[in-house]
């Protein structure tokens, strides 16, 4: 039986691991190779690196980090952030990434996802979607709560697109995404749990694995994401970086609650 995956996420800025709230107030959280090695030893099922470096001049730093990590860690590594063209995909895979995550570039040019999937196989193409809840317009006299809606944001959660998240998720899978990384921009950094409605809606709508992201503060949140949210994998950053819980503690917690976990 396929195990649910626990994935620590490392935000990388100019070659260092950082952590911020809602993509802001960044703080240093260590050396990527050291942090990756620690998570590998604790039993992480995969690692995700998101490069949030603003300047493209610092891009080679990322390739060096990916290369050093891939040399020492024998679990799958996904790298995203600033993946704009085929040359980026090729360079990241060549540096040792197993999958690349595409976000803003997919919105600008959906054909890019198709091309990358055709060339390198859909299994190494992750489409990352930053989702923000749309405040429902409430016509007077409407008794029932309206169906929730989410909008796709780009540029690290800063820019609106007006695109509906569910439509977008389905379209991206048709286009060749092998996996979706769903981040709730509303929940990210709040430590109050994933947006479970969002996860549930997407997990039902698509046939590829879904990684839940944004909002974990307790181990119970991981459990909710995998069960109620229907996610295939859960991603978390701060609870692991700040040493609140080890990966091993998270896995034991989930396994004790009956989730299929690789221990």
């Amino acid at each position, binding site marked *: *039986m*396929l195990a649910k995956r626990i994935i620590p996420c490392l935000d990388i800025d100019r070659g260092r691991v950082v952590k911020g709230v809602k993509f802001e107030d960044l703080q240093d959280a260590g050396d990527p190779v050291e942090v990756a090695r620690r998570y590998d030893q604790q039993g992480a*099922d995969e690692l995700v690196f998101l490069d949030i470096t603003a300047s493209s001049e610092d891009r080679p730093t990322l390739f060096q980090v990916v290369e050093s990590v891939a040399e020492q860690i024998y679990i799958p590594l996904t790298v995203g952030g600033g993946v704009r063209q085929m040359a980026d995909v090729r360079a990241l895979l060549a540096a040792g990434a197993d999958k690349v995550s595409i976000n803003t570039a997919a919105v600008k040019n959906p054909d890019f996802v198709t091309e990358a999937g*055709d060339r390198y196989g859909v299994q*190494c193409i992750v489409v990352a979607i930053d989702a923000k809840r749309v405040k429902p317009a409430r016509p007077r006299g409407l008794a029932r709560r309206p169906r929730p809606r989410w909008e796709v944001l780009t540029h690290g959660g800063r820019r609106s697109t007006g695109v509906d998240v569910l439509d977008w998720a389905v379209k991206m899978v048709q286009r060749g995404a*092998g996996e979706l990384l769903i981040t709730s921009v509303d929940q990210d950094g709040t430590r109050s749990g994933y947006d479970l409605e969002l996860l549930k809606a997407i*997990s039902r709508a698509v*046939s*590829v694995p879904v990684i839940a992201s944004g909002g974990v503060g307790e181990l119970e949140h991981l459990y909710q994401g995998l069960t109620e949210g229907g996610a*295939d994998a859960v991603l978390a950053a701060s609870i692991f970086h700040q040493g609140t819980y080890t990966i091993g503690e998270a896995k034991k917690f989930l396994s004790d609650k009956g989730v299929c976990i690789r221990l």
Partner: protein
Amino acid sequence: MAETIGVVDYGMGNLHSLGKALERVAGSTRVLISYDPDELLGCNRLVLPGVGGVRACMQELKRLELNEMVAAAAKNMPLLGICLGMQVLHEWSDENEGVPALGLVPGKVVRFPDPPADAKERLKVPHMGWNRVKQTRAHPLWAGVPDDSWFYFVHSYHAVPSRAEHVIGTAEYIHPFAAAVARDNIVAFQFHPEKSQGPGMALLANFVGWDGRS
């Protein structure tokens, strides 16, 4: 003279981490990543990795004259296929509207069925993540690897060998399927040993020391 492991580079895979993983277990054995058929035929053992689609894979193997090289190597040296590299060892793959493959192991490659709409839990395709492998037949590569160990998979298609005796390990996803096959000096895994921590590294180490006899 020191031995050499050849890793077939047909331009589609991420060979960096596979090369590093092999180097880690290779001891004095040299790891050579190459697309030169003559250079690869001069090696003592061969790894055929693979990611991507089967049509592009077969096209590139033919364009680089590596298909004949792999067939020749399969006659006289230990050969390890990984993921798509396992699938193309079979005769035929249904992927990309159907593609004839290398035919070194009798059988074909088919897609996982889509789950019925009313399924209680929807099993996603690709089969992506860690799954247990049951060792259904003894093989030298299983030495020191506990039965039911976890390995990392990522694939939408899986091999269906014609002969049951070629299946040495199975995993269960939607239904049981061949996760490891072996025929004479050929052995192949659907999962990625280079991404499977301890058990994966043990398999690679066993391959480095394998004489090609089952």
